[in-house]
């Protein structure tokens, strides 16, 4: 998955840069973040509890920082492992540009998921990651700029070949939760997908994969992307 976006933050670039390197601010802005520690100037670990639809789960991820060119740009890479449940990896090039008293943050991010996460959740990753990125920057802008007016304009470049209709509809849909987005996308595409969703939900109730793990892993993918977007 490739994703890019631009956010206007009503604060000077130095302030934004510092905030992006402040574990406390990040912890407050990352949706569901419980702990976030810098283990070195270029490394940190995070524990995040995510709630996507009916499922709540906790994940751990690690992020490293490369190509640091303070206060203008860096590349960040994150990786989360879930054993046989799969993995998620992400990296992003982040750039801060001064625009008067404001800062324009642009990013291009790449994320890759593998294992069960890819098999069962790949079509939810894009919309979930975008939603979480928007949530993060909404809060971040509020914290750093003292306002929640930060405009968001992100564009997603989708992979081909994955029930495109469902994907694009779920992406366009600023849904309250991923399950609802999936559900509505499926209705729009074809009723035949409906049963599959019910099956997945039935499996979720039973609790094995297809259950909390999957939804949790989807969250992990999103978290990794979000982590990759900041620091």
């Amino acid at each position, binding site marked *: 998955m490739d994703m890019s976006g631009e956010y206007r933050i009503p604060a000077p670039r130095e302030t934004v840069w510092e905030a992006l390197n402040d574990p406390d601010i990040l912890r407050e802005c990352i949706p569901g973040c419980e702990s976030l520690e810098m283990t070195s100037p270029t490394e940190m670990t995070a524990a995040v509890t995510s709630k996507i639809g009916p499922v709540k789960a906790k994940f751990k991820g690690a992020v490293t920082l490369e190509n640091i060119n303070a206060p203008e740009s860096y590349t960040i890479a994150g990786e989360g492992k879930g054993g046989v449940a799969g993995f998620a990896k992400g990296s992003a090039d982040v750039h801060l540009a001064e625009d008067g008293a404001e800062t324009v943050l642009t990013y291009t991010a790449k994320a890759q998921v*593998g*294992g069960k996460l*890819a098999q069962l959740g790949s*079509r939810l990753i894009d919309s979930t990651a975008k939603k979480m990125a928007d949530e993060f920057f909404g809060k971040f802008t509020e914290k750093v700029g003292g306002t929640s007016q930060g405009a968001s304009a992100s564009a997603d470049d989708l*992979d081909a*070949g994955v029930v495109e209709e469902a994907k694009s509809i779920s992406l366009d849909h600023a849904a309250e939760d991923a399950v609802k987005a999936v559900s509505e996308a499926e209705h729009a595409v074809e009723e*035949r997908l409906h049963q*599959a969703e019910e*099956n997945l939900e039935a499996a979720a109730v039973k609790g*094995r994969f297809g259950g909390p793990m999957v939804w949790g892993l989807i969250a992990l993918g999103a978290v990794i992307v979000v982590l990759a977007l900041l620091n």
Partner: protein
Amino acid sequence: MGVEGIGARALRKEDKRFITGKGRYTDDIVLPRMGYAAFVRSPHAHAKVVSIDARAALEMPGVDAVLTGDQLVADGIGNIICGWMIHSKDGSPMNMGAWRALEPEIVRHVGQAVAVVIADSQGEAKDAADAVVVEYEELPAVVDPIAAMADGAPQLHPEAANNLIFDWDIGDEAAVNAAFEQAAHVTKMEVHNNRLVPNAMEPRAAVADYNEAEEHHTLYTTSQNPHVARLVLSAFYNIAPEHKLRVIAPDVGGGFGSKIYIYPEEMVCLWASKRVGRPVKWVCDRTEAFLTDAHGRDHRSEAELALDADNKIIAFRVKTVANLGAYMSLFSSSVPTYLYATLLSGQYDIPAIHCNVKTVYTNTTPVDAYRGAGRPEATYLVERIMETAAREVGLSPADFRRKNFIRSFPHQTPVIMCYDAGDYDATLDAALKAIDYDGFAARKAEAASRGKLRGIGMSCYIEACGIAPSAAVGSLGAGVGLWESAEVRVNPVGTIEVLTGAHSHGQGHETTFAQLISERFGLDTDAVSIVHGDTDKVQFGMGTYGSRSGAVGMSAVVKALDKVEEKAKKIAAHLMEAAEGDIQIEGGELKVAGTDKKLTFTEVALAAYTAHNLPEGMEPGLKEGAFYDPTNFTFPSGTYICEVEVDPETGKTAIISFVAADDFGNIINPMIVEGQVHGGLTQGIGQALLENAAYDENGQLITASYMDYCMPRADDVPSYQLSTHVTECPGNPLGMKGCGEAGAIGSPPAVINAITDAINNNDLTMPATPEQVWQLCQGSMKMAAE
């Protein structure tokens, strides 16, 4: 049930247990002290296995053992084999890489197993499998078969440079080239046959039970061919000698080819049962099935058809790249060669054909036979280019085909096959009439008035069933013979058991095989039971695939019945003091012609077993066996026509009508044949419109559940109009051809030809998703505007 012979629409005897939930499948088998297996699988498409740490898993509740590939190799368990040797055109044997049931060094596709956990319950085993920590070092992966052959592409196996398994040729290249020089018209196209996941309703499963005192293994498993499984497990995998291994395939819920092969999991269960000293059960979950059941199709081809000035085909040239995935599955090499290129003549008299096939390793699930196995790929290619050529030269698709039909038999094609019988005009005529082809223009105009695009497309398929004869396939590289066996046991009370080497996993053998006996002896089908699927009960047999149970399996039954009938008549003649030639069998009785003397079948059977009064020198009993090795393939054929309506606003295709006119030779049970055709057509329409196994560029299967892999449903298909025309197959005693795969073979090109006709754009590839169709509609409209 009554006396229901050949041609009766007898209700299926097996359905009572299937539809009342009384079927007995592998997962229904529970043995004392049984443990459960769960596999630890790679999340990476290509990676070195650096370490496997099972300490945490071993401390979890209920965990008995965690076994890895190193232990498997140390125990001398053999690599998984490919049972059909293909030589490249330069004479070199195919480049086969090692495939270990648990991989200790390098994983080559997502889902490949590296370890197995045995625990007291399935849940505990799966939880512990999650706790096994495997450290991988990722390697670059390649998914696209064309890219895989390029210099510098990631290499899967040291044996196969540039990932090329073999580079194989069939046909006379020089003759083809010469004909192309003379061509008045050449039609060229690229054709891609999409990758499919088999999706049998019952996933694979195994229960392995090792008896230490007897040094004997029993394996209950979802197999289409239990004897072949036992042979391979014994001869190649060193599990146990054949007499120390019993393989039972109980009720099996669908196979479509995917249950022919001997997979790592079943073999690991056998090995693990001996190692841990308890029975071991494994049941594949749906995601595992997507990742590990051998996939189907995945061909990329370039085809060129040369015509003379009279629109007669003078030559056909094809180049195909077949993606075989990460390893060579059991019959993977035969599918894109002898089951594919040998059918490239279609129903047409083509003097020269040449086909080159390159098979390639990629970091994807292995590919093998799936309903049709090579013939769908050939038919799709031939029928797409026939339709395209007809459009290019301005002939109607039917007239162009008729111009090139084969009409005299036997017909030797330039690609090995010798067609024995057929009447292609008859099935084409029947299909054209059934769909009211002449009325299409009016229907198209009516649809246009509603803003809809109507299209019609046909497919005149031929396929080859009952792969044979054994000596011929042996000379082409097959590791097994392809005959079939049967034993007919008449019990002392006159009931009959038929032991067949064929295996039913949905085909209805218990009904159709019984109909043969009913026909022959006039007995109630309830007096007959069909025994199959157990190597301890049934003599060696080859199983069921390639639509062979009728033409090959039933022919063996007929041969055994001939012997039983002969002996029963001798006994009856002796008892009634009549000449053997005067004995007639009718309505369950043996009668002396022209008299009122008669004995019931039961009386004759009892006499055979009491042996109080048998002809001089005759052995007691009434039980006969036979092996049948056909002299040729059989060649079912037919015409399918599909009419679609496309909504240009949404790209959605609705199949308005679909007619099938098939020639299956003689038919035992028309209802069961119709069921087979319905299922096959629906699978073919699924391939054409919906199904696609998609990988991302890193080798992750991103269509690994029914949320993303779209299976056809009842509302995706029309009510089919079926008819049959009979030309008897001269190659077997029943004149049968086989009907199990035709629907899946013939239908995809009919659907795609219809859609391309509707949207007036030939660039469509399968599956014809609404998005793709919509995009092409936009292109067509733009071109029309210009």
